[in-house]
Structures are given as C-alpha cells and as structure tokens.
C-alpha cells in the first residue's frame, strides 16, 4: 500500500504525466476467446480486463425467464491475483453490487424484446486491476456484445471522473482513486444518455456538474476508440473474405 502523495497535480501534470482531461492509454483486442459468442480484451492504463458474452441462450431455471424479453445477466469478477493483496475466490459484496450496476448500464441499449425467454450473459474478468475496473469492464463488455452480434441501440462507453487537489480530473489512476476526494464512474451512450452513475467522496454541486461534463468528453473519446476497433475488425474480415469480389 503506497502512501498518500503530497500533491496530485504539479505544474498542471498528474503523477503519471497526464493532463487533467486526459485518459490513460487504451488498447483493445476483439474476439480473443472463441468459446464465447463475443469477447473483448481491453487494457486501460495498467488495468487488464476481458469480457465475454454468451447468448441469447436458454435461461435456467425456467421461473427466471421473462416471457416478453431476454434477461440480461452480468458477473463481474476479479482474479485472485489481480491486486496486491490476494482476493479470496468467489463473489464479494463489492462484486455483487458492481455486477448489478453494470448489468443495468446495458439493459437500456440491448434490444431484449427480440429474444423472449432467453438470457444474455455478460462476464467480465479483471486480470490486473488499477483504478477504474468497472468502467474498463463496461467498455470491454460493450464491444463483446457487439462482437456477439447482439442487437443494440448503440455502444455504451464509460469512464470515471474525480476530484484531487480540489480539481476535477478525468480517469483516476490508483493513487488518485485511493487518496483523492471523490470518484464518479459514469457510463453513457454516444448521445450522452447516462446508463451508469455512481459517486464516492465529497463534491459541491458545481464541481459535480463540471465532473459530468468532463465525463461526457471522456466517454466520447472512449466511444471513438470502440468504434474504430469495430471498424477495423470488420474491415479485416471483409478483406479476408475477398473484399469486393465476395
């Protein structure tokens, strides 16, 4: 466990050299897993997460089925070695809550009505955690859903905003998350409809408004990266299948 730094922002630069409104580097790999119907591996700073989607598929036990649409299910899990102190395998209160809010982040965008009685299962595994695993997981899951061909209104993009040294900053790194003043994870669609919103810490109303606006620009950047990853994949497949000749 590191110590609280004296300052988080020095000469306009954060501890890892980023500007206040700058995201950590993001790397996306689509379809790394072939058993799942869709999957995505995503690195975000030092976070490493993988998401897989199965479905629509039969839902058991039957009494959990919904006659009028698919049931979206989500399991967010951290590998026992993904953090400094080993985590006991199995669900924790934290992971149960995060699984729930992630599920609800997608219920609006998935066209569940097309698939009554089925389940759409989203699995997120955190292999290496830095701050922001839930938002990293959402971004990966969003792409895994697309990769699985699940019909959606659009992608969901997520990032956190927070407050350190009295300033609103984008995409908290671990020290900022642990010792900062506030953390606000946000997920939204490309037309800025918020599907996940949580808040930890303490902020004034004005600060909070600034934070949401900053989250909007962060999510827009993430959305562009997600879109680009999908375009590249389909370009590659198109060419692999013979391009115009097909």
């Amino acid at each position, binding site marked *: *466990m590191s110590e609280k730094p004296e300052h988080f922002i020095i000469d306009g630069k954060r501890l890892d050299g980023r500007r206040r409104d700058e995201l950590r580097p993001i790397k996306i790999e689509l379809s790394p897993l072939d058993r799942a119907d869709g999957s995505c591996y995503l690195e975000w700073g030092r976070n490493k997460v993988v998401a897989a989607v199965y479905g629509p598929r039969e839902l058991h036990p039957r009494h959990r089925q*919904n*006659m*009028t649409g698919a049931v979206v299910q989500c399991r967010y899990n951290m590998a026992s070695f993904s953090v400094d*102190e080993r985590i006991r395998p199995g669900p924790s*209160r*934290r992971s*149960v*809550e995060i*699984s*729930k*809010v992630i599920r*609800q982040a997608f*219920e*609006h965008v998935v066209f569940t009505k097309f698939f009554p009685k089925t389940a759409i299962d989203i699995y997120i595994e955190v292999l290496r955690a830095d701050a922001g695993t839930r938002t990293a997981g959402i971004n990966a899951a969003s792409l895994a859903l697309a990769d699985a061909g699940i019909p959606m209104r659009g992608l969901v993009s997520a990032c956190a905003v927070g407050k350190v040294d009295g300033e609103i900053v984008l995409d908290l790194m671990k020290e900022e998350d642990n010792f900062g003043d*506030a953390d*606000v994870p946000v997920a*939204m*669609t490309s037309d*800025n*409809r*918020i*599907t*996940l*919103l*949580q*808040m*930890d*810490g*303490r*902020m*004034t*109303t004005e600060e*909070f*408004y600034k934070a*949401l*606006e900053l989250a*909007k620009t962060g999510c827009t950047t993430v959305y562009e990266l997600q879109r680009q990853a999908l375009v590249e994949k389909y370009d590659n497949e198109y060419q692999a299948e013979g391009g115009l000749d097909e």
Partner: protein
Amino acid sequence: MSSGDNTVMAEVQRDHLFNLVLKGERADGRAFDEFREITIETDAIDTADGSAMVTLGDTKLLVGIKVQPGEPFSDTPDKGVIIVNIELIPLASPDYEAGPPREGAIEIARVVDRGIRESKSIDLTKLCITEGEKVWIIFVDIHVLNNGGNIVDAASMGAIAALLNTTIPAARHDLGEDTPLPVRDIPLAVTTIEFGGEMMLDPSLDEEKIASTSLIVATNTDGSISGMQKLGAEPLMIDQVMRVIGMAQTAASDIRKKFLEV
C-alpha cells in the same frame, strides 16, 4: 404476487399512475417533491449502543448499532471500521425471502454505507484504540419491518439518527469511560424516481414498481454531495441529474432540520 408484475393488473395500475402524472398528481395526493409522514424514535432498543425506529409512510424499519472492539483493516491500521448491514427479512414483505442478502439488499447497504463513510461524518481516526491492533467496530444493522416503499431513504435517516444516538461502550470493555460517538455531519440519502418524464421524491411501493429509473443522492449539511447511485434501466440526461440533485438537497435539508438537528 410478485408473479403478477407482468399481468393485466400491473398494466392497468401503470396506466392509472401515468394518467395521474400527466395531471401533475400522485395517487396519495402528494406533490412531486413531497415526502410521506416521517417519525424517528431514537433509543428504541436498550441492548443496542444506539438505535432508531423510523416510519416513512407505511415503511417501518429499526436500526440498531453495536460497537465492539476488533481488528482494523490492514490498510487503515489507525481507523475504526463501519459495517452497514441490511436485513430484508421475509416478515417485511411478501416479496422477501429468507436466506443470505441478495443483490438488492447488498446494494442498499453499500449505498447507505458510502453515504455515511464518504461524508466523513464519523471521524474514524477517533475510533482507534491501539494502532494496528484494536479499533472500535461500528455495526449498523438495519432491520426492515414493513416495506412500504423507499427503504433507502428510511434506512439512511435511521442510520444517522441511530449513530447520533450512539454511545461507545468503553466501560463495558475496560477501555475507559463511555463517550458519545463523535458525529460531525448529517448525511442523508434521498431517492428520486423518474416516471412519465417527471421526477418524484419518496416513491411509494406502487410508484417504485413502475419507475423507469431512480437516482439516489446523498447530501450533507453544507449541501455538498457525498454519494450517488443510479438504479434501473432507463437512462438519464445530465440536466435531469442536476435537477434531481437540487431536489435531494432541499428535501434532505428539511428532514435534517425537522428530525435530526435537535
């Protein structure tokens, strides 16, 4: 009953409430920003180190605090620990089942917990007995007796009321004299639901069931925000969120003045 959620009756009720909203009304005649009747009775249970019985309309719950010496977390060796637990016991609703807490109960407990913790209402460093070895553990157990809707707000009121009423039982553990638990702020979580394009505070059970989405906002005495949680599938726009924050601040301030700053 819960199996009836998708039935014709549910449809009819939904339509009825929707039509009321169009007219700016609620089924029980309240204004959109009006709470149901609140009572908070502290010192309800003398085996607890602090307690509060809360009624919020038909909702009834009991919060009991137990303070015990125990080990600190390894990453905060000089701080006491708060553990918030909620029991949605089957006595309180035909929809609750016996067994370990489910998703919903865990979420409520964690939201109430963060509201208290993040507001820094309790100075956890004052709960250290011997650094790295022994600190005071504060168990906040929320026992729901009747679910009439909006458990979160009732639990939030009950938790802080009970904490304000809590004594650290140092004498019982040969650790000096009993002292009141030092509470520095009065955080309150307020739930707003969205339905038919309107925002409403303090949802009744029926309103809760048909809400498209809801947003819980915890605010402090100085109006600052110390917690937020969006529930439900429908999305919210930034301006809606800001409007809800304003409603929550006003309502929390009223409740705080009427019931908690005595």
